[in-house]
């Protein structure tokens, strides 16, 4: 570790500024290791005690042609000594590993911000690929920024020349050299990344050694580099006491299900088919066979959910994970689970649509599909997580609702929170709420599959293997008591109505929605799901400036919290902000037809920025 004394023992005068937050973006080719570099920086910041929020933004090509404009992969992180709810709008530091990375990301850098470039990559060929006529490092076009030119490729090669590595392995270490430089700039210790590299390359110690050497050389290089005239200190944030770890939304989702299965005393079963950006949930759950978790990578999306329905029939906490196109394929099966009244959770990690759309980018355009994308009258519970960390609690909640109400639940997350990471205050399973399943106890003599409880209208759950409870269920309309086939007109209407009422009644078991900032006043800003962080930051800024503005972020969408109408009545204006062309607002307009809603929408595959939101909100007040 580099101690503070080393930092003070500098070769020339250097200012050490104390700042509240900083926003850094690492950008390079999709094979440059920018995701790893960014993750390392944010993990180190979190371990130091900062609040952090990250935003990986990468192309759908795995290894796009080198130096191309469309092959640029980026990782943005904001870290702070104050609350950090977004990865940030404007960059303080842009690390660009080649001309294409600089060209496509410069717009986000604030005036006077810092750029670190690998000058070796600014050769004729790469400049042409990035469609630069002149070399921007030389033509004065970057004069509004603090430009740090470093021969990163050459310096990395030089520092590793004695290790006897091939050229490719040496070139691959340049991201660690760069990370070392940024660590120096923000007074960060190297310990965490060193131990990470040792672990990652346990079987290839020479690669670990090369990466660590590159990391350290980058750090020392920055220390001696006069261009780096300022370094920055971001103190630890004041966070609620407890034990934390940094989690990605998809991992938190996986863990929420693990916790729910443990709490409910059931085995967890995941039936899934790989699809971006949901696959990391599968990747995470396959690791934990030891907890009785069964994962089944099926032949397609439909088999994924069909296996989950079968596992649910046999008594597992059964889930399936997907993204928009997969949700479309699962539609018929969701209807089956819905009429069979079996508990399953369908996770839709939303991405840009329609069709294949923008697979690696974020969007919220599956809401209406989740609500209405099935044949017949087939309501299900819909809830949405709103931060990387609360993916844990909403995965848990989705499981609890499915098991206690005997119904499919669709859990909506999105690419932004699924791939983003943030500190999570770890919850022990014992501190989570109880889950009371509807399992029929062994020894029960008479079982009628569709007799319901009074408060939830949920039927009970008899499992194959239980003597005396043999019964048949399926997709044909069932008799309201026995569950046998009954296609009579009155029975069908009764069943449609009772299934709708069952979902409506869930409102009695979910919390009221709460508002941040002004509890009444000029403007209520409404969002749902993964836009929480950016809306929160925008509303906070305006509330701090004295505006009478409140923020309500919906996590429960079907049914809505019971106080929704009352909440809306407390504000002069309501604006519903969504990363789609207006889906929740369409539901609001049909549900609350005496209330006027305005809307703010964006479908660029990108999250909202704080500045665009504040600008829009100011225009409404």
């Amino acid at each position, binding site marked *: 570790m580099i101690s503070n004394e080393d930092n003070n023992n500098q070769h020339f005068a250097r200012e050490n500024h104390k700042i509240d937050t900083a926003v850094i973006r690492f950008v390079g080719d999709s094979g440059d290791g920018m995701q790893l570099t960014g993750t390392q920086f944010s993990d180190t910041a979190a371990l130091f005690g900062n609040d952090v929020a990250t935003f990986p933004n990468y192309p759908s090509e795995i290894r796009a042609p080198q130096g191309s404009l469309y092959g640029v992969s980026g990782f943005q992180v904001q870290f702070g000594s104050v609350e950090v709810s977004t990865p940030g709008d404007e960059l303080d530091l842009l690390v660009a590993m080649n001309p294409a990375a600089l060209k496509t990301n410069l717009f986000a850098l604030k005036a006077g911000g810092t750029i670190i470039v690998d000058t070796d990559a600014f050769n004729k060929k790469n400049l042409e690929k990035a469609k630069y006529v002149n070399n921007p490092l030389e033509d004065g076009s970057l004069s509004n920024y603090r430009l740090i030119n470093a021969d990163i490729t050459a310096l990395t090669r030089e520092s590793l020349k004695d290790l006897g590595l091939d050229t490719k392995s040496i070139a691959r270490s340049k991201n660690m050299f760069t990370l070392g430089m940024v660590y120096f700039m923000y007074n960060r210790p190297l310990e965490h990344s060193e131990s990470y590299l040792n672990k990652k390359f346990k079987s290839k110690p020479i690669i670990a050694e090369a990466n660590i050497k590159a990391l350290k050389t980058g750090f020392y290089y920055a220390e001696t580099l006069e261009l780096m005239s300022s370094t920055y200190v971001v103190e630890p944030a004041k966070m609620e006491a407890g034990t934390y770890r940094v989690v990605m939304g998809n991992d938190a989702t996986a863990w929420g299900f693990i916790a729910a299965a443990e709490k409910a005393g059931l085995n967890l079963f995941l039936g899934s088919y790989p699809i971006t950006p949901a696959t990391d949930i599968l990747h995470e759950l396959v690791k934990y066979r030891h907890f009785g978790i069964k994962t089944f990578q099926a032949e397609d999306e439909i088999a994924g959910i069909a296996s989950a329905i079968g596992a649910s029939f046999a008594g597992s906490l059964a889930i399936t994970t997907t993204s928009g196109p997969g949700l479309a394929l699962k539609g018929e099966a969701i209807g089956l689970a819905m009429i069979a009244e079996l508990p399953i959770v369908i996770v839709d990690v939303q991405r840009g649509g329609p069709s294949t759309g923008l697979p690696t980018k974020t969007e919220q355009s599956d809401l209406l599909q989740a609500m209405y994308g099935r044949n017949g009258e087939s309501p299900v519970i819909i809830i949405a997580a709103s931060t990387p960390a609360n993916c844990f609690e909403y995965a848990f909640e989705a499981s609890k609702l499915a098991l206690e109400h005997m119904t499919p639940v669709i859990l909506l997350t999105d690419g932004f929170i699924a791939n983003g990471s943030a500190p999570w205050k770890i919850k022990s399973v014992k501190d989570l709420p109880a889950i009371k399943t509807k399992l029929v106890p062994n020894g029960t003599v008479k079982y009628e599959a569709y007799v319901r409880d009074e408060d939830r209208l949920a039927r009970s759950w008899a499992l194959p293997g239980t003597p005396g409870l043999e019964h048949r269920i*399926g997709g044909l309309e069932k008799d309201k008591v026995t569950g046998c086939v009954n296609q009579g007109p009155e029975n069908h209407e009764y069943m449609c109505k009772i299934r709708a009422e069952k979902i409506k009644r869930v409102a009695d078991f979910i919390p009221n929605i709460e508002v941040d900032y002004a509890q009444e006043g000029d403007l209520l800003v409404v969002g749902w799901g993964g836009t929480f962080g950016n809306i929160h930051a925008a509303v906070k800024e305006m509330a701090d400036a004295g505006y009478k503005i409140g923020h309500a972020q919906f996590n429960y969408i079907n049914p809505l919290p019971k106080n929704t109408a009352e909440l809306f009545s407390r504000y002069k204006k309501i604006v519903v902000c969504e990363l789609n062309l207006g889906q929740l607002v369409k539901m609001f307009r049909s549900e609350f037809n005496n209330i006027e809603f305005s809307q703010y929408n964006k479908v660029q595959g990108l999250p909202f920025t704080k500045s665009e939101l504040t600008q829009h909100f100011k225009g409404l007040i």
Partner: protein
Amino acid sequence: MESNVKYTFKDFASDQEVRWCPGCDDYVVLRAMQKALPDMGIKKEDVVFVSGIGCSSRFPYYMDAYGFHGIHGRAPGIATGVKLANPSLSVWIMTGDGDAMAIGGNHFIHLLRRNIDINIVLFNNEIYGLTKGQFSPTSLIGQKTKSSPYGNTQTPFIAGELAIGAKARFYARVGGNEPKTMTDIFIQAESYKGTSLIEILQNCVIFNDGCFTHFTDKDVKEDMQLYVEHGKPMIFGKEKNKGLVLNGLKLEVVTIGENGVSEADILIHDAVEQDPTLHLMLIRLHYPMVMGVIRKIDDITFEEREYQLTEAIKSKSNFNSVDDLFFAGETYDVK
């Protein structure tokens, strides 16, 4: 799982009125299954029937066991979930030619490939019955149906050939009018560890009546069918004087006692041979139509592999609880 209770076929009949067309072979299958189950040595509560959509997929409703009537083509997925969630159950898929090989074709081949211990009963009537008479993936070229009034132009699948291409380990074929053979094969299928596929050549009395009669009718069946049994010579015919021999790379029908052919020259059926070449040749024959358990090879099941892997991982794991996982690795304390 082993049952001490002695059941009769009545114990497996549900209180639901059976609604197939009068004269349908499905009644034969239902009765054969109800008769087979008491002899399988399994408990009634451990039996699960899963189906898709089609006439045959109504089957679970008529069995007093656990049953799940799914959606079209997806029974393999549902059944896989049931079996993986609780491997001690006896899981049966009841499906048809359209359900298994058209809309559910993808699931069907992957189910066979994985070798989960599930039994599939495939009712093949070479027609869509429930939708009233369209051609199916096993309908013959030229077959006139509601959706092919001038004759079918799509090449049919041979179910056994498709199944073996998908790595089926157990494949049997039986006529829809052979209840005793069916019962026997159902029992064999249940005791077999792995995916068993039993194809039933089932006559649809309404839309494709008589499509199999040229080899299933009582008068002709002994001459037209070869019923194979492992370890026994492939002899058929009313006079038990016809048999199969291998002539180069082709099967040939010979008559015992003619041209110097004796019983010793006739091929012996080897159902457990891993190489499927001869099994495929038997499946493709039209004369004689080969019935019985054609292929039954040993292999580890998918769920057994899963179980062994889980036990190995468990024995190496340091995690005793979910909390161990949550608090392991890179955590930090905020005071």
